[in-house]
């Protein structure tokens, strides 16, 4: 019962460079619109850390399709539920990953998606609750050339 904002999904699918070359160079030059997107979503209010479980690998096996499982702690009743969760990546050419909408009828604020990461970067989730409070969680996902282990 999660709806991915279609515009966001298109942004996700559209503007990504090939992963194979220069992931580190890309990491060194992080300067996408993540901060602006977050500021727009929060209205400049500082979100509290917590209530979100962001299941992402520490090191991506394939940057082109990284499994992400999101869980937000909430009773999901008419009085108290998760309204929406914005997910951004601060090292992709475009920061937008997805915005997930929930209602009390969702039952759980849970989603499983696959995202594309062009380089080592932070994936940041921000949840807006029905009372307007904001929570956040982040994880660094390393995108590596691979090999040489063992």
């Amino acid at each position, binding site marked *: 019962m999660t709806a991915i904002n279609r515009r966001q999904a298109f942004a996700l699918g559209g503007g990504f460079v090939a992963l194979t*070359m*220069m*992931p*580190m*160079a890309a*990491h*060194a030059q992080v300067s996408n619109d993540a901060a602006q997107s977050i500021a727009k979503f929060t209205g400049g209010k500082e979100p509290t850390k917590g209530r979100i*479980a962001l*299941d992402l*690998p*520490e*090191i*991506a*096996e*394939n940057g082109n399709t990284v*499994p992400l*499982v999101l869980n937000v702690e909430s009773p999901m009743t008419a009085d108290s539920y998760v309204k929406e969760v914005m997910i951004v990546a601060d090292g992709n050419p475009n920061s937008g990953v997805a915005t997930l909408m929930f209602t009390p009828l969702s039952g759980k604020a849970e989603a*499983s998606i696959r995202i594309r990461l062009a380089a*080592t970067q932070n994936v940041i989730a921000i949840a807006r609750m029905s009372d307007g409070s904001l929570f956040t969680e982040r994880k*660094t996902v*390393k995108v*590596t*050339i*691979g*090999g*040489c*282990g*063992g």
Partner: protein
Amino acid sequence: MISRREFIQVAAATAALATGTGIGGLGRAVAQQRLTQRELLAFEAVGNVTIVHVTDIHGQLMPLHFREPSINLGVGEAKGLPPHITGKDFLARFGIPPGSSAAYALTSDDFEALAKTYGKIGGLDRAATVIKAIRAERGDKVLLLDGGDTWQGSWSSLKTRGQDMIDCMALLKPDAMTGHWEFTYGTDRVKQAIEGLGFPFLGLNIRDTEWNEAAFEASTTLERGGVKIAVLGQAFPYTPVANPRWMIPNWSFGVREEDVQAQVDKARKGGAQLVVLLSHNGFDVDRKLAGHVKGIDVILTGHTHDALPEAVKVGKTLLIASGSSGKFVSRLDLDVRDGEVKAFRYKLIPLFSEVITPDAEMAGKIAEVRKPFASDLSKVLGKTESLLYRRGNFNGTFDDLICQALLQERDAEIALSPGFRWGTSVLPGEDITFEDVTNATAITYPAVYRIGMTGARLKEIIEDVADNLFNVDPYYQQGGDMVRIGGLSYAIDVARPQGQRISDMRLVKRGAPIDPSKEYQVTGWASVNEGTEGPPIWEVISNYLMRQKTVRLEPNRAVKVTGA
């Protein structure tokens, strides 16, 4: 709780192993006379459970020389902690006299001289003798666990896709195993091999890529000495990153700390009084995991090939590091009561091959599985005037030899060779056989490539590998040592973040700085990319050695290390 007295006894047992075998200026015969099987096996039993652990055997069925690292740096919270101490610091930390048999087994100092005194270590027939003796003494209290990297690392393992090791290990009847290099035989072979094992191959952190569901058994429950034991298995978390993902496209790995906790909780709820994690995470990853996951009594570590003569304690969790290449068997006695480890005693038993009587049944099986390859293995390719070894963070002489062979045989300016931690040592004056070469190279993706790479790309690769080794968060490390580089020198500051560690890259021959925009001819092997073309690495090295006849590797000064 573990009493102070127990700690002292553990320390005393370690000291006994060391001091009883000190040789001073005595010769080989006297040294060996003073070292006995009885002494190596001596153990004052404790409690109701005995865990026997072997790991990272890497296809080594025969006794061997294996030089432990002289450089094994730790970063972040692991800096200066075992296993990140070497040489004299290691000896001092564990109270081991220089020149003793324990010093020879555990460190690199005076390796050449001590190797001549104490001879080869290991051999699965020696391991069998020790394991049988422990079982005879402790009966139904014993469980045997194999930490993986068992089926790969030799020519016979490669040619039989691990069947040689599977057949030999079957005689030891392990209770469970986990894996890493096992997966480089590909999905079908792994599935087929597991079916015939007769014991579980565990991997709680492996899911299928399609549905994100468990792909392997997470745990096995055993009863030993009246104690219900849950053994959880953790495969190498970065197998599809460090090794070819295309060989196992449907399996996804990862550290998956939450899954480990969930499995521990499930085991405890199911009545397990002892929870053991059979791990191929690597020591630093396990040390962090032990601090985060509650309820694990013992972590049997693997992957990073560390051999520690004492258990390391993190909270209530004991970490055991049993070395590699079949050099050691670990024995851990536990007194488990009321769902808690009340006392323990631990001994890392080095398998001095000239002291321990080989088990006849295993010796026969080893001879049988090696027979089809005997003439290939014994083929002499050349001779070395200096010690050939691999283990160490930045370089090893065996890798220098491989890089020289690559540069010459493939006519390139720069050679890249993976920082594998397995591979045996060859003493000065010894012949280099095809077995020695394949002990360092026998993998399922051996093609030697030759491509053009810009200086910028080279730096990126070196930075990337350095971060896999020196990221301050162990969960972002992959294990393995630094990529070995021929024809290129560089400086590394291990304390800096990724992208800033590597500087002063130069071509060794002319001393010219590497130009980021210039393209260089680069050769290497063990590419994780599908469809890499070129001759197998052992063929390239064999050709080089047959042309050279005799090699002598000078100390490598191409890497300047700071920040350690």
